[in-house]
Each structure stands twice: as C-alpha cells, then as structure tokens.
C-alpha cells in the first residue's frame, strides 16, 4: 500500500510545486528526492517496518514479489531521473506537471504489481495509461508529438474498451470480479470442468488488450509511431518502466486464467511470441533512425518477456521476469539518455561518437551489448532465465531455437550503432554534457556488468 499512497501524494506535491516555484532545478531535485522517498517507503513495507493499514477488502494484496518489482521500477525511475531529469524540464513550459504525471504513472505501476482482482487491474491500467497519453503529446508545438498522442489515445481507449468487455463477459460467466489470487474467479475456474464460452471469450478479449499494452504482435501497430513521435525522454520512460509493469500485470493476471483456455493457451502464446519476435526484429533491421529502431527493438524484447508468460508458474521464469525488467530498463534508459544528447537521431548521427565522447559511446555500447544478450552483461542472464524457464515448463525446443536465431538478428541492428560510433568517421553534434551525467552513465554500465556476472546480486533480495 505504501507505494500506491506515497506515489499519489508525490504526484500532488509535484503539481503544487509548480505553483510555488518556476525554478527548473528545484523542481527536478524535488522529483528525484521524491522517487527516493517512494523507494524508501516501498522498502519499509517490504521489510515489515511500516505500512499503511487500509482495508481494501482484498482488492489489493501486496506480496514480496510485487513489492520487489516496485523496487526495480522505482530504482529504474531514479536512474532515469538522474540521467534525464534536466531533459524533461526542457520539453515544455510545465516542467512540474511532467514530473507529477510520472508519479501518477508510478502509482499505476504499484497497483499493477499488487492488484487482486480484475477491477483493480482495470483501474491500474487506466491510471498508468492516461498520464502517458498526455506525456506523449507534451511537445505541443511538434505535429508528430500531437499525432502520436492522438493515435495512442484512440488506440489505447479502444483497447481499454476491449478489456472492459472481456472483464464484463468473465463477470457474466462467473458472477465474480475475480480475486485472482484467492477464491472467487479462480475457484470458479477450477470448479468448472468445461469452462463456459462466455468465460473463454472474456479471457481472449483480456489477452488481446493486455497484448496491446505490452505491444505484443499483432497488437503492436501503435508502438513505432507513438515511441517515435513522443519526446525522447518520455519514450525512454514508456518503453522501459511502463512496459515492464504492463508485462508484470499480464503475467500476474494470467497466472491462473490460462487454464481456462486449456491446450489452446500454448498455441496462442506461441503465436504471440513468434510473431512479436519476428516483427520486432525483422522490422528493426530496416530502420535508419536509431529512435525508431529502439521502438521496434522494444517490441522484440517484449517477445522475449512473453517467454516468462509462457512459463508463468515456474520459479525461474518469475525470477527471469524481474531480471529482464531490470536489465532491459537499465540498458534502454541509458541508451536513450545518450540518444537525447545527440542532435541527429539517424544512424549516421552516431558516426564517430567514440572519438568525440568516449564515455557516452562506451555506456551506449555496454547497453547495446546487454540488449543483444552478450554474456557479461545483464541482458544475457535475463534472456537465459526466461528461456530456461520456458524449457523447464516443457516448452517446445523449436520455439526457443527460433527465439535465439532472432536474437542473432537483433545483434545486426544493435551492432550497427556500435559500428557507427567506433568504426566510422564523423563529427556528431551533441548537447552540452555534464560530468555528473557521465559519471551516472558509467555507474549504470557498471551495474549492467555486475548483474551480468552475478545476477544473484539482485535476485537474492527476492527471498530475504
């Protein structure tokens, strides 16, 4: 509960801070400290030191797994703010409001990691999404940003509608909004030998709308345009923390629901995984803009995270989901932080960066290596855990072979950026870069490598 309440409060604080000061540095610092407070509050609950005691009638149930995910999400947000907070204040005039919206998104994240019924899932998804529609369109004078925002809003609302429809059908079938983790819907599912068609239809609609939220194919079409059109700082946030939270919600809600679909379940997930990986990886190869390439890469990475969904009841898949969330968020936040500093987002804009800004190029390289899953970076173990989870859950070997072959494709487009930075000549124009920014980038790179050697550094906290 701590995370939900504190993040909502911090959102309000940020909104009002805009009234009292227009100094961007102060606002920025309040936000950064705010995230730390949020993290501390969450840790307190995790260690049973203090938590708000509110009777939610089992709508919200906090578990160590969800709280740990919160820690990762808030930690990633902290790193994100350290690296990019000053760029957030440059997007438009209402700096304080952007931070407020980010805190509201985090509130949504906290709900998604602890919901215990379909109703709370719906509320969480909405709290998460609505601030994002605004952030996407926050660059008001940019037509692309406006277009992206409108597109995202229309498609997002439609998918929310589909989700509500699914929930309604499931309610109709079972007479229960579903306590995913206790009695209620779960009991009804187990009791029903032959699940009613109404329920099956509802589950499939829910699957479709959750696929939309995590941009899994064939519901991914909004992703490239929205990620490309949104201001880059917010793309970074959307494609990492928000996507990981969406994926977590996806996995949590289907933890028991998948039994409804019987053997069809694996066919559906197989299809989702293969098409997501295929579309994400193959299309990314042809992109000339690094920002757009990262948008497709985020689709491809979602395909790998879906493996955790495939094997959602095994311990290793759950750990893999957390590790993937951390590894992917760190790498993507750091590569976006570098991208934002460049004037030219095209591949050629990276030419010769290693000569001009060796630290930026190095950090970007570590991130790209991690995204491609090369050993000694966190990305390797993330991929390893989810694949091992799928294999242990009896996953077909062909599926895993397809996945690793597409991972090899991903090397192609990630390494093109490395090639541009190190092997090509050029004079990239960058925004002014501070020493603190470089130090933070190095720290993130070091963290990626530490997780790549010793993932237990993170995962062991799950069991304390």
């Amino acid at each position, binding site marked *: 509960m701590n995370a939900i309440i504190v993040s909502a409060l911090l959102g309000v604080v940020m909104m009002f801070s805009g009234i009292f000061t227009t100094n961007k540095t102060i606002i920025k610092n309040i936000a950064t400290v705010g995230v730390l407070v949020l993290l501390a509050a969450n840790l307190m609950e995790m260690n049973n030191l203090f938590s708000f005691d509110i009777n939610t009638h089992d709508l919200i149930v906090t578990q160590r797994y969800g709280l740990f995910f919160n820690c990762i999400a808030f930690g990633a947000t902290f790193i994100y703010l350290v690296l990019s907070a000053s760029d957030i204040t440059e997007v438009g005039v209402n700096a304080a409001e952007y931070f407020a919206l980010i805190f509201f998104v985090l509130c949504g994240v906290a709900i998604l990691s602890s919901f215990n019924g379909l109703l709370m899932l719906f509320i969480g998804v909405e709290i998460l999404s609505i601030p994002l529609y605004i952030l996407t369109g926050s660059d008001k004078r940019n037509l692309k940003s406006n277009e992206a925002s409108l597109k995202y809003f229309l498609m997002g609302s439609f998918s929310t509608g589909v989700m509500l429809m699914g929930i309604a059908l499931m309610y109709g079938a079972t007479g229960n909004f579903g306590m995913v983790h206790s009695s209620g819907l779960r009991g009804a599912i187990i009791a029903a030998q032959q699940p009613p068609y109404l329920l099956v239809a509802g589950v499939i609609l829910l699957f479709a709308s959750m696929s939309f939220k995590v941009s899994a194919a064939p519901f991914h079409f909004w992703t490239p345009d929205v990620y490309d059109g949104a201001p880059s700082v917010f793309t970074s946030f959307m494609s990492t923390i928000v996507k990981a939270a969406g994926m977590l919600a996806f996995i949590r809600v289907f933890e028991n629901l998948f039994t409804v679909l019987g053997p069809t379940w694996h066919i559906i997930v197989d299809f989702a995984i293969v098409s997501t990986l295929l579309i994400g990886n193959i299309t990314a190869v042809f992109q000339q803009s690094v920002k757009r390439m990262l948008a497709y890469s985020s689709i491809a990475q979602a395909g790998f995270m879906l493996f955790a969904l495939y094997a959602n009841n095994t311990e290793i898949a759950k750990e893999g989901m957390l590790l993937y969330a951390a590894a992917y968020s760190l790498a993507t936040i750091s590569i976006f932080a570098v991208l934002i500093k460049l004037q030219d987002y095209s591949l050629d804009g990276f030419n010769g960066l290693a000569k001009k800004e060796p630290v930026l190029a190095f950090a970007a390289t570590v991130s790209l290596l991690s995204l491609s899953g090369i050993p000694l970076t966190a990305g390797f173990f993330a991929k390893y855990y989810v694949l*091992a989870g799928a294999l242990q859950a009896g996953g077909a070997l062909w599926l895993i072979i397809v996945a690793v072959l597409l*991972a090899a494709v991903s090397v*192609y487009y990630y*390494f093109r950026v490395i090639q541009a930075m*190190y*092997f*090509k000549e050029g004079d990239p124009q960058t925004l002014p870069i501070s020493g603190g920014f470089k130090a933070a980038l190095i720290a993130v790179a070091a963290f990626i490598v530490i997780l790549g050697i010793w993932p237990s550094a993170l*995962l062991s906290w799950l069991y304390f």
Partner: protein
Amino acid sequence: MIPVLLLFIPLVAGILGFFIKEQKAASNWAIVASVVTLLTAVIGIYAMPASMHQFEASWLPSIGASFSVALDGMSKMLVLLTAISMPLIFIATRNNNYSKPGVFYALMLLAQSGLMGVFISMDALLFYFFWELALIPVYFLSSIWGGEKRIAVTFKFFIYTFVGSLLMLVGILYVYIHTKDHSFAWSSFTNTDLLSGQETLPFFLFFIAFAIKMPIFPLHTWQPDAYEQAPTATTMVLSGVMVKMGLFAAIRWVLPLFPMATKTFAMPIVILSVIGMIYASLIAIKQDDIKRLIAYSSIAHIGLMAAAIFAGGTLGLQGVQVQMFNHGINVIGLWILANAIESTLGTRKLSELGGLATKAPTMAILFVVLAFANIALPLTNAFIGEFLLFNGLFQFNIWIAAAAGVSIILGAIYTLQMVQKVFFGELSAVTANATEINSYSKWVLIVIVIAVIALGVYPQPLIDLTKDSVNALLVIK
C-alpha cells in the same frame, strides 16, 4: 590456483593496458604481461602438484553453475599454446604501429584471457561465457585496425559465430535439464540420462557452433575474408589459437557428451571435413594473395584434424592434440613472414613478388623451413602430427584416408608454389629494393623454427602431455 592466475593475469593486464597512451610502452606492457602468463603456465604445468591445477568457487548455486576451472590433460596443450603464442606475436609485430596502441594491446590481452577461459572451464555456462568473451575483443580489433573491408567482413564473422554460439546455448540448456543433479558441471554433463535418440538434437546444436568456429565445409566462408582483413597480429591469434577453440570444444564437449550421436554421424562429418580439405587446397593453389593462401591452407589443415576427431580412436585423437599445438606455432610463423613481406614491400600479391632470396637470405631460409612444416615433411613437427592423424583416419576408413591424402599433395603444390614465387625467379619492381626481415621478427622466427625441428625430431613431450586425457576420453566413450 594456477588456472585462475592464467585467467586473471591477462585480464587485469588488459584492463590496465587501456590507459597506456604510447606505442612502445603499450607494446612493452603487453610483452611483459604475456611473458608472465607464459612463465605461470610453464611453471604451473610442469613444476606444480596436481592439486594446484584445479579451482572451484561458488557462482550461481541456485541454477547449479559454478566457477570451476581446471588444467587437465585436454586443456594443458592449448593453454600452453595460448601462453606461448602471445609473447611470440607481440614481439614479432613490435615494429607495427597502431593508432590508440594501448587499446589495441589491451584488447589482445583480453582475447587471451577469454581463450584461456574457454580451455580451462569445467562448467558449461562458464564455458559459454568465455566462448563469447573471446570473440568480443577480436571483433573490435578487426573492425578498428583491419583492412579496407574490415567492418563488413568482421561483422559477417561475428554474426556467423554468434548464431553458432546461441544454438550451443540452447544445446547447453537442453542437456542441463537432462542432467541428474541439475548442474552445469562437466562431470554432470557427461553423465546425463539422455537416451541415444535424444542425443541427436543437442549434438547438432553443439556441433554447428564448433563447426562454424573450426570451420568445417560448408560453414567456412567467413574465414578467408576475416583472416585477410584483420590486422596481422589479430590474424595470428585467430588462426593460431582461436580456431582451436572449435576443435578443442568438440573433444571436450561433444565426444564425451554424445557418444552415440558422434558414432552415428561420424561418417558424414568426416566426409564433409575431407571435402573441405580438398576444396580449400584447390582454392589455395589459385590464390594470389599470401594471406588468403595461408588462410585456405589453414582450412585444409583444420579439416584434417576435424576429420580425425570424429573418426575417433586413440592415435587419431592423440594426433589432433599434438597437431593443434604444432599447427598453432607453424601458422603463426607463416603469418609473421607474411607480415614481414607486407610491411617492408607494401604488397601481399604473389604476382608482384619474386627473387626475394637474393635480397633477404635469412628470411628465405626461415620461410622454407616453415613451408616444409606446412607440408608436414619428416623432421618437422607437423609430420608426427599428421602421421597420427592419418593413422586414425586410416583405421576409420581406408578410402577416406586416401582421399584426404590427396590434400597433402595439393598442399605441397601450393606451398612450394608460394615459396617459388616469393623467393626465387626474377626480381620484380617491388622486390628490387627489398630489405632483410627486422630483427624482432627474425628472432621470433628462429625460436619457432628451432621448435619446429626439435619437436619434429623428438615429439615425445607433446605426446606425454596429452596421453592420459586421450585414454580417459576413450574410457568415457
């Protein structure tokens, strides 16, 4: 403790090396570091008790992976090769100048560390780690300091090997879930509950990775380009040591893990290897570029070793071990000469060379000895190796041995043709002003030539080093 030192001396030296700015200082640093590694290896292997040859530490207990390294019979030979070749390479190429020399030498040392790791890992996940890590420094070395087409060529090489290693990762996972104690340890991997029918799939997942690295026909297409475009010092590492990763891995991770599948598929693999030998030899005859010629000749030699591995048998496997070492130092010698010719004359084209023997007699003598070793003439070290290899192949199938024998004749053709075109005949416009080989390269070559002849006359030390491991391997099978 020794294997850990072998891993960390080059690693730490490499990381420190990044901060050196000057050419000479960086080169000195690399030489010192590699000589220390060499001393550690030699003293460790010959003077330390067996208890010092192993090390195990906890790494990821929850998934059954541990940091387990060992210097056993299988790895000693290649560890020694890795340790010897690096100082030779560094000294021989001391006159080469690089932009950002500190980074160059640092990456070379990191590659050495990765190679050591591949050879000493006794844990499949750790092995996979080093398998990839040995590749990354080479990728940067070739892409930054290589020839004109370096970026595309190196990228092809990288993607090729990366696809292979990802398939191997799936294979590792597959075997892992079939181990009895859910562990990545080599001992668990060689003792799984895989049925003979279940071996086929993981066998090929592993085999493709190693076949790309060796390379076995038809997966060899990355190699000549990569050798040609890489800076010479890196080419030496690639062909002297790195291709041995594939051969070594087949011995360590394929034969004991999948004995049934190895037996079933031995014939097609041996045939492919022999086709590759003859094919590469024929292409080598038509080459005009010295680097490409050596590259194709290397494919032919490796093909013979690959054939012998899958043909099995004590003599053949022993021959592979001996020959891996011999081929390593011989080919490094040839690259040093190619480098000397290119750096003094500015060309590698055979058609532009000629009559060099009159201008550079020492170089000619050294080259001829190494050329003889390349054809495996008696009294050179390669003879005993090839003899054992052919012996193994002969016991496997007489016709295949005969076909493989053709490549020896072809080998003599292209090697002697090369010697003739470079050192004899008329002086060309390019070679008219040729000078003698520089003293760094000369002394390294003299050391190599002495080793070639010494091990040719008395190969027993090499055979002793590997005997136990080959016998142990056959017991497992």
